[in-house]
């Protein structure tokens, strides 16, 4: 089989995390009773007019900034006219001619090198209502009608499903970190369409493209692109031609299926929205928005690595924004960041997951966490000890020292106390001592087990092993 070069472009719709809708004062919410978040504007009642939610413009400026886009200073909205039951006015207010952001990029790391995925444009528009098909009836829920969206369109510069996946992961991370969207693909707050075509040589014109609509997860984007590439290769190899199609990915089937063949001259009769005057973006607006952008994931990863955090932990931290934000509060301190990351991502994360809590909802202040790190670092607290007092650490406001004393574990790890315990164990188990002398390795494990049992696990294992060996010999 000949090698083909895929050309992929991705369009992503992201719902913005605003209090109210884009063109009305209705609340922007998910999972509420059908049609409870609507008013006459959302329903497209005769005589109603759109207003413009300033929060949307600010979030769009923010998105344009984190996606390295140029920002258009004078813009308008356009009407996209088409009849569909989920489109209450039978036109959608969008930006066709003057998208707020253009010529941007997102960097991904693929096979050890950095690639820029170029963003053609990003624009603001309103979401449609949600339709549910029941037999021959269709139910309409207008709660989603008028929810603010940004649509982010890449250039056809993606050449593999892996790149597509990395791009979407990066995009999601950036938008989530900047508090622009909660980016939940399963709730539809982030939706992706992929345009796929193939050709034999880079010098060839682009092949016929097919669009895969509304893919429900990032992994399915990758899968559907692979399937679509394979399908197009099969057709071309069989000498067949095909038309531009709109397809969808069928999860059960594990393949893309035809929705409709694209008709030429799809005519949306765009024209400038006369109900919304021109919008001017000032330097000040951009500056104000820039000040609200937190440290982004790439920078966080870089700093974590510099502070001695392992690459695995650095990535894990970044994947959990609230932990990462918490971790960032330590960055000005002189502490062991490796231990800090281990603690946060290990037992503390397990606790948080179980309790369904955020780190900020526990009593672990920065000061107490630093104390904890110190105790672990100088071996005055073992990981077993730590596990035993984890609940107290995260639920009480006492200092770590106080908790340790209270639980009666501080004296045991004292050097001489431990030596006395070990001596006694050896005397109490002459058979095992004999085994050890005869070279049976399992004897030393038995003794260690006894030590831990006797100290209720609070002995520092490294230290216990040292003393045990000294005493045995």
């Amino acid at each position, binding site marked *: 089989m000949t090698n083909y070069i895929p050309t992929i472009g991705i369009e992503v719709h992201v719902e913005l995390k605003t209090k109210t809708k884009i063109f009305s004062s209705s609340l922007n919410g998910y999972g509420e009773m059908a049609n409870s978040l609507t008013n*006459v504007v959302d*329903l*497209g*009642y*005769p*005589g*109603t*007019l*759109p*207003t*413009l939610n300033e929060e949307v413009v600010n979030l769009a400026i923010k998105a344009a900034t984190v996606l390295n886009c140029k920002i258009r200073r004078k813009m308008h909205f356009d*009407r996209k*006219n088409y*009849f569909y*039951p989920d489109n*209450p*006015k*039978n*036109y959608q207010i969008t930006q066709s001619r003057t998208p707020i952001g253009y010529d941007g990029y997102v960097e991904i790391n693929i096979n050890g090198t950095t690639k820029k995925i170029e963003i053609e444009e990003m624009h603001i528009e309103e979401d449609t209502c949600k339709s549910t098909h029941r037999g021959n009836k*269709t139910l*309409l829920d207008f709660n989603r009608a008028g929810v603010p969206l940004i649509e982010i369109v890449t250039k056809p510069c993606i050449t593999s499903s892996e790149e597509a996946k990395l791009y979407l992961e990066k995009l999601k991370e950036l938008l989530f970190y900047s508090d622009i969207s909660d980016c939940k693909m399963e709730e539809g707050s982030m939706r992706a369409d992929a345009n796929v075509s193939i050709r034999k040589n880079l010098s060839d014109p682009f092949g016929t493209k097919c669009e895969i609509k509304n893919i429900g997860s990032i992994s399915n984007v990758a899968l559907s692109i692979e399937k679509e590439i394979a399908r197009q290769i099969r057709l071309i190899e069989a000498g067949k031609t095909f038309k531009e199609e709109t397809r969808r990915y069928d999860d059960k089937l594990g393949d893309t299926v035809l929705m409709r063949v694209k008709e030429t*001259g799809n*005519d949306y*009769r*765009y*024209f*400038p929205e*006369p*109900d*919304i*005057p021109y919008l001017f973006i000032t330097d000040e607006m951009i500056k104000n928005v820039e000040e609200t952008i937190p440290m982004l994931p790439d920078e966080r990863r870089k700093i974590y690595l510099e502070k001695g955090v392992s690459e695995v932990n650095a990535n894990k931290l970044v994947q959990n924004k609230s932990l990462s934000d918490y971790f960032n509060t330590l960055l000005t301190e002189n502490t062991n960041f490796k231990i800090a990351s281990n603690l946060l991502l290990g037992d503390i994360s397990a606790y948080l997951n179980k309790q369904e809590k955020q780190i900020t909802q526990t009593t672990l202040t920065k000061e107490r966490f630093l104390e904890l790190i110190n105790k672990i670092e100088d071996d005055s607290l073992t990981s077993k000890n730590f596990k035993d007092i984890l609940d107290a650490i995260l639920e009480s406001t006492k200092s770590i020292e106080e908790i340790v004393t209270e639980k009666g574990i501080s004296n045991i790890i004292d050097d001489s106390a431990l030596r006395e315990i070990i001596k006694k164990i050896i005397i109490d188990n002459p058979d095992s001592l004999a085994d050890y002398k005869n070279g049976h390795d399992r004897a030393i494990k038995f003794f260690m087990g006894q030590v831990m049992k006797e100290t209720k696990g609070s002995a520092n294992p490294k230290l216990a092993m040292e003393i045990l060996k000294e005493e045995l010999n």
Partner: protein
Amino acid sequence: MKYLDKSIIELHQLLKEKKIKPIELVEEAFERIENNKELNAYITLNKEEAKKQAYELENKEVDNILFGIPIAIKDNIVTKDLRTTCASRMLENFIPIYDATVIEKIKSQNMIIIGKTNMDEFAMGSSSRTSYFNPPKNPWNKEKIAGGSSGGSAATIAARDLPLALGTDTGGSIRQPASYCGIVGMKPTYGRVSRFGLVAFASSLDQIGPMSRNVYENALLLNAIVGKDEKDLTSALKESEDFTRLINQDITGMKIAVPNYFLSDIVSEEIRNKIKEIINMLENSGVTVDYLDVKYLENAVTLYQIIAMGEASSNLARFDGIRYGHSKENPENIDDLYYGSRQEGFGKEVKRRIMVGSYLLSGKNAKQYYNKALSIRDDMKKELTKVFEKYDFIIGPTTTTTAYNLTDSMDDPLKSFMDDVLVIPVNMAGLPGLSLPVGFSSDNMPIGLHIIGNNFEEAKIYQLASFIEKKLNLNLNPRGDQ
């Protein structure tokens, strides 16, 4: 039962002194409307609610000059719980669940809404003959049109049913029927009055305005309805002002421009002569009048057709039979619901404009027509604004002819636009314009003078209009009694 021939100032005094009650005015208005039934000025009367409101007002303080004054509302302005049809079968049974901003303002002044007036379907027309509910008639001659699209509002004011009405003006729809019916009609500056709750025809041109028996009362109603509205992004941020404040002030030294096109042979000789008479009178009153060529005026109708129909095709897309309005019974599928509901719900002229508008916005046409029209419109706006650097007003006739017969052919779609050839440029430029009755034709039909002012200079328009009104002192009651 002669109260409603009195001026609003007189009525206000009587109400204030408790010599009359609001219910007397309301009952008289309904009686007059009943007597003038054949004018067909109304689509819906608000009898019960208006009477109820009138009784309630008896216990309230008469706190403003429009308190208790009956008003009629054009039927494309939504009124909560009061049927709003846009004179279309599409909305024959449509009861809005909210009030337009202007209606909120009118209610807050305790004016009493008497009914919803007849009009061209969705305001598309210039004779009100595209109404689904049959056309209104001209009180001066019931064989003739009242004009349009605010024909019902013009007819009911001219017939002296009540003193005030709201109309809407997209391409002359207040001023032209005002001229045909011999009343005063003002289209304010675009943005002066909130459009929230006005069922959109052409969003960038639509404007609500007052219609009245005389200039002063027109200004009073404008006072009540203006203001920035957060619900309408195109409404203008302007301090409220008293539009009557310049009335009776001296006009000596004012400068008026008359575009040659406005007195060219597109205008009937009779009307031209009447306007020239007025010009002479003004010149004798110390006003300078210059005739000049103003570019683009003759393109206005073409531009208007492209812009208005393009926008209309989109604005009327929401009438799909799903959420409100006429819905085809037992549709086979969604397309059948769309086609059926719109085919049955819209009249011929509306369909024609939607089709032409859709065509104009299609594919390459959008660039070739709509965008080009917008750009010429900007030039036209600049050209007209330039005139106001030197002049206080632009004047001319409101219409090229007086009201014609109801039975005249409607087959020529261009004819209806040509009726508005003199008034459309004002909408294109967003300027304020007023039609003032200045005389009658040989067959006793009213002739209107069109006064155009600079942006937001409505008060100045009223100043000139009231000067002329006083000077002419015409009897504008079609029944002849003063």
